């Protein structure tokens, strides 16, 4: 049976009805990975215990036990979330050989929901990048065209879902790392509100921006996965006590009466005009579905990327200080401790990571702190206020996820600023702590385009409503790479 196009919901129904066992389902995906992943490289590692986990679910089902919402569903895990006993490297040489000593909270919750953890997916080195080319394990290819990048940094998770290697995967999003690869691979990616999902056990990049979320074929599946992983966790003090938990069955496929905002600053120069046309067509589809479309302004939008590239490297330079080669990972010994640090980190970090660590050290250093870091914190306030204002008039905001479709592998590799511009529409959601989702909405030159939907903090329900309505009326998400 062809499992490549199965949604989580469909797979769950087949398992519940007895049409298929979790073992057979998992074996099917494992076969696809072993036959086809050589040319895509979505996975860094495949779990040896996946089939055992699947059999355990089958056994529990046979006993009539009540099972979780993801019982028997194989899920891919971005290589920056700790799974006890797995080698977890964040695709970075400096974490080579590092074995997870405990489970991230999202992993424990997926297991409680019955998910089968199938393997670790590829990503940019330490999650820094927008193309998955900086991975220490080599690049991931876009399943739609293997000469193109899949986006990043969660490019392995996105490619794995697009290629039909898993029906769902976890990614992490600091400035677009779930939404942008989802857009470039033609699937659904959700960055939840800051605080909705615990980051305990996520290898930190920038702590005021990082958020874990699902990558799936459909909006409904996204809600099913979010329900499984969300909620307060005493081990992550930034996680929120939720008053509106996700209930997938409550999502209405109806946008009648909703007002959707189109930020004029997001449709200006710098975007491929063909991407704009596809996105505007999607906007019109939602208008036909009953939504009211309203032009809005986010006046500080043009400062978002500069703000992001001060705050993110500053936080990263601090977070990555813990990678010293002593307690885990790569180690290169020197004459004294200082030299050991410098050698380990100089050899273990990739070019982009070193670039950002130095950038962060610089903007945080005495004499420059006020001009860069403090200034960026102030502009972050202005960006947040832009959204607060906009959401007084609209229920959700629509924009492109990425200014272009997937580009050639190598094309932007040596031009960091060109690479950073790929995140221009996504970084704002992280800066403003709001939820954002990318939904496939068409093609340019045979490559997928994503529609980004943004909503108020903790209003993922509006994202699901708009996204599910769109998917109900279009068939972009049912198209698969050949």
């Amino acid at each position, binding site marked *: 049976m062809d499992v490549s196009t199965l949604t989580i919901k469909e797979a769950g129904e087949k398992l519940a009805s007895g049409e298929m066992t979790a073992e057979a389902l998992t074996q099917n995906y494992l076969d696809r990975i072993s036959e086809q992943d050589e040319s895509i490289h979505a996975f860094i590692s495949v779990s040896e215990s996946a089939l055992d986990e699947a059999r355990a679910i089958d056994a529990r089902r046979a006993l009539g036990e009540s099972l979780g919402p993801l019982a028997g569903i194989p899920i891919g895990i971005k290589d920056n979330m700790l799974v*006890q*006993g797995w080698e977890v490297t964040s695709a970075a040489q400096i974490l080579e050989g590092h*074995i*997870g*000593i405990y489970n991230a909270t999202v992993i424990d919750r997926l297991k409680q929901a019955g998910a089968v953890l199938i393997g670790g997916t590829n990503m940019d080195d330490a999650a820094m990048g927008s193309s998955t080319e900086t991975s220490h394990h080599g690049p991931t290819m876009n399943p739609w065209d293997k000469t193109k990048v899949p986006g990043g940094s969660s490019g392995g998770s996105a490619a794995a879902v697009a290629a039909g290697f898993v029906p769902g995967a976890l990614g992490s999003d600091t400035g677009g790392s779930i939404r942008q690869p989802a857009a470039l691979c033609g699937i659904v990616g959700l960055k939840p509100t*800051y*605080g909705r999902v615990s980051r305990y056990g996520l290898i930190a990049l920038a702590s*005021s*921006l990082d958020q874990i979320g699902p990558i799936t074929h459909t909006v409904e599946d996204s809600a099913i996965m979010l329900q499984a992983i969300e909620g307060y966790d*005493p081990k992550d*003090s930034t*996680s*929120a006590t939720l008053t509106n938990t996700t209930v997938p069955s409550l999502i209405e496929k109806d946008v009648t009466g909703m007002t959707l905002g189109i930020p004029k600053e997001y449709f200006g120069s710098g975007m491929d005009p063909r991407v704009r046309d596809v996105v505007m067509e999607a906007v019109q589809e939602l208008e036909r579905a009953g939504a009211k479309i309203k032009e809005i302004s986010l006046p*500080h939008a*043009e*400062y978002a990327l*500069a*703000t992001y*590239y*001060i705050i993110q490297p500053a936080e990263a*330079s601090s977070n990555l*200080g813990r990678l*010293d080669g*002593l*307690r*885990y*990972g790569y*180690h290169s010994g020197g004459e*004294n*401790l*200082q030299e*050991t640090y*410098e*050698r380990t*980190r*100089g050899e273990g*970090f990739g*070019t982009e990571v*070193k*670039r950002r*660590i*130095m*950038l962060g*050290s*610089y903007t945080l250093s005495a004499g420059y702190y006020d*001009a*860069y870091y*403090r*200034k*960026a*914190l*102030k*502009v*972050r*306030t*202005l960006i*947040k206020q832009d959204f607060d204002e906009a959401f007084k008039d609209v229920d959700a905001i629509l924009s492109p996820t990425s200014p272009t479709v997937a580009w050639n592998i190598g094309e932007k590799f040596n031009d*960091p*600023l060109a690479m*950073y511009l790929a995140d221009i529409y996504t970084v704002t959601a992280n800066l403003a702590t709001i939820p954002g989702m990318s939904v496939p909405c068409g093609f340019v030159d045979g490559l997928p385009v994503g529609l980004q939907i943004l909503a108020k903090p903790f209003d993922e329900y509006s994202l699901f409503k708009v996204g599910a309505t769109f998917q109900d009326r279009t068939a972009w998400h049912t198209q698969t790479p050949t």
Partner: protein
Amino acid sequence: MKFSKEDVVQIAKLSRLHIDEEELKQYQEDLASILGYVEKLQELNTDDVPEFQHAAGGVNVFRDDVVKESDAETRRLAIENFSEREGDLLKVQAVFSNRTE
């Protein structure tokens, strides 16, 4: 935005990063180009704007400091991750030395 080779060497030292001599020029150009771009923020007058304080709302979270024993498996994995060890102890070089640089 001007950025000298010596600036890069100094930042690399602060960042505990060894950078090869031949890479210095590239980092010098890259950092100057990125800092030139983020310079854009200086256009904005932010004198009366408060700094963004905390992504989760800025409420402190307190708890009692209670010791919890870790299980044997967690302990074993943690120790096996050490790059150098003596028995179950992490072995590191001296933090302070008698030499002065």
